[in-house]
């Protein structure tokens, strides 16, 4: 089985809100002292792929990223998690291309890399959270797509996908090739690669392409805004002043807390 996993490198989403700044003119977050990390759902996708390979016995896992040159680090870390091959399309244009541009670039690279039974992406990225890459890649490649998957089994040429819904879960059977978007659950927390494996991964081959190598409208992809454009980006100033309940004893404090709750809920 040939599996492709797409990865996106993003600004660490765990940085505290007080350290987070945006450049309103460029409509981008400021890097500041934040680290660059692989978006969590992408890592959940890779972990799900690795577990599928372990259960299926054999599969080749290829990694693909479209991003700044630093995205190589995300791919290297993923190689250290024991993926088999990696390719990077270097983004030398708009740092925040729209979802259709991203899907077209990734789809062109996927065609160039070969044929895949399973293409996996995170359900949304931890920065812009558009949640469109998977669906749009499926359309570009004419494949079906299933979203919010957290477990995949391979059974005699068929795939069994478990996915989360609003009220519970569903199991789908699917014929490859297919695109899935992956969400997190307690079973697909990404494994931590050994430091030594991360160092060794820098010796592994890694394919690098520019937009011009892909046979697409490279300039349109560089502009990256024919689908939509970020018109404004700002930090909303919304802070509420919390009224802490007071009292000399715990009993008094909880009493007035209970009263506030009743006030709010009995007005329902």
């Amino acid at each position, binding site marked *: 089985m040939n599996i492709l996993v797409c990865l996106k490198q993003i600004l660490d*989403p765990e940085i*505290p*809100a007080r350290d*987070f700044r*945006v450049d309103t003119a460029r*409509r981008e*977050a400021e890097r500041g002292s934040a680290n660059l990390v692989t978006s969590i759902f992408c890592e959940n996708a890779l972990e799900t792929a690795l577990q599928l390979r372990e259960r299926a016995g054999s599969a080749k896992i290829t990694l693909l990223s479209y991003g700044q040159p630093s995205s190589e680090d995300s791919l290297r870390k993923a190689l250290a998690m024991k993926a088999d091959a990696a390719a990077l399309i270097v983004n030398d244009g708009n740092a925040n291309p729209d*979802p*259709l541009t991203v899907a077209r670039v990734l789809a062109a690279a996927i065609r160039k890399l070969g044929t895949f039974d399973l293409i996996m992406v995170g*359900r949304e990225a931890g920065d*812009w*959270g*558009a*949640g*469109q890459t998977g*669906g*749009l890649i499926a*359309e570009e490649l004419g494949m*079906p*797509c*299933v*979203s*919010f998957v957290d477990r995949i089994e391979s059974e005699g040429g068929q795939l069994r996908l478990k996915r*989360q*819904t*609003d*009220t*519970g879960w*569903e*199991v*789908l*059977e*699917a*014929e490859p090739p297919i695109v899935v978007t992956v*969400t*997190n659950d*307690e079973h697909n927390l990404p494994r931590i690669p050994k430091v030594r494996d991360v160092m060794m991964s820098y010796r592994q081959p890694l394919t690098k392409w520019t937009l011009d190598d892909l046979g697409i409208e490279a300039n349109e992809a560089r502009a990256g805004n*024919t689908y*939509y454009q*970020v*018109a*404004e*980006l*700002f*930090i*909303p100033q*919304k802070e*509420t002043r*919390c*009224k*802490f*309940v007071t009292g000399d004893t*715990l009993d008094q*404090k*909880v009493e007035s*807390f*209970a009263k506030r*709750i*009743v006030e*709010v809920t009995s007005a329902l």
Partner: protein
Amino acid sequence: MNDVAICLFASTGFDKAAQGLAGAGRRFADELGGQLRAVVIGAGADTLALKVARLCDTVIVADQAELAEYQPETCLSALARLCADLSPRAVLLAGDTYSQEIAPRLAYRLGGSAVGDCLEVQVEGDALRVSRQVYGGKAQAVIELKRMPAVVWLRARSFAPAPARAEVGEVTRAALDIQADTRTRVVERKREEKGEARLEEARVIVSGGRGIGGPEPFETELQPLADLLGAQMAASRAACDAGWVPPTWQVGQTGKKVTPDLYLAIAITGASQHMAGISEAKTISAINTDPDAPIFKHCQFGIVEDYRKVVPLLREKLAALQK
């Protein structure tokens, strides 16, 4: 060409999201000077259509056998054809699993642009702009859509319902020749027992975080409190990832976006990714040992104490007050 279409799944019924969707659709259609059209899909579409017809100008029912139950590819093809026939300026969907799954692909097939988790839709001259949270709720972006139609999935519960109208919209049955696309097939559907009433529909939510410390207190401490308040239970990502509670309980950027009248956060620090899921809650309150926990910046009221001491006493006091 200035019409607005809303897509509804009969399986979710006329819930708060469907009502918010119709409300957003009506205001948007009025602003554009167009009609509000609804497409209702799946088994039971007839019943839902009658309710929706009180709010919309026209309603199309698509409940052929192939569409009775949601199947991603078949449903997408049907919606793409029905929406193409309507040639609307915008297609609006709610934020449920199926809508999120379909919306970008629907936009692709209609030659339009999609954007999701939208909190506001504005018309500015020829342009359509939507507001949404980004960077895990730390920032807000206004996105300008370049292609038509705009396919937008909304945080629908945040939108006010539409006023009922004197005229009832015309209901027609879709004349579609549908082939089931069996490349993917839903073979099993399971509803979590405790999620029977959907979290997104809840008016009161009791939610626990990492500080709860394990699965048992959810059962023994929080659940009885929730029962007293007629509340739904929820949790932070940390509590779900730890496997203490089902993943369907998760609230935040990567979980449910909820809009209760009261959200009671217990032992939840309030990381911005969690706050992104409750920014539309009417009142937020918290129990936390740390007065500097970020959650309190969003609370109307709170208590700085260990939840283990507060919750049992709180249940007593609430029970007494409710008498």
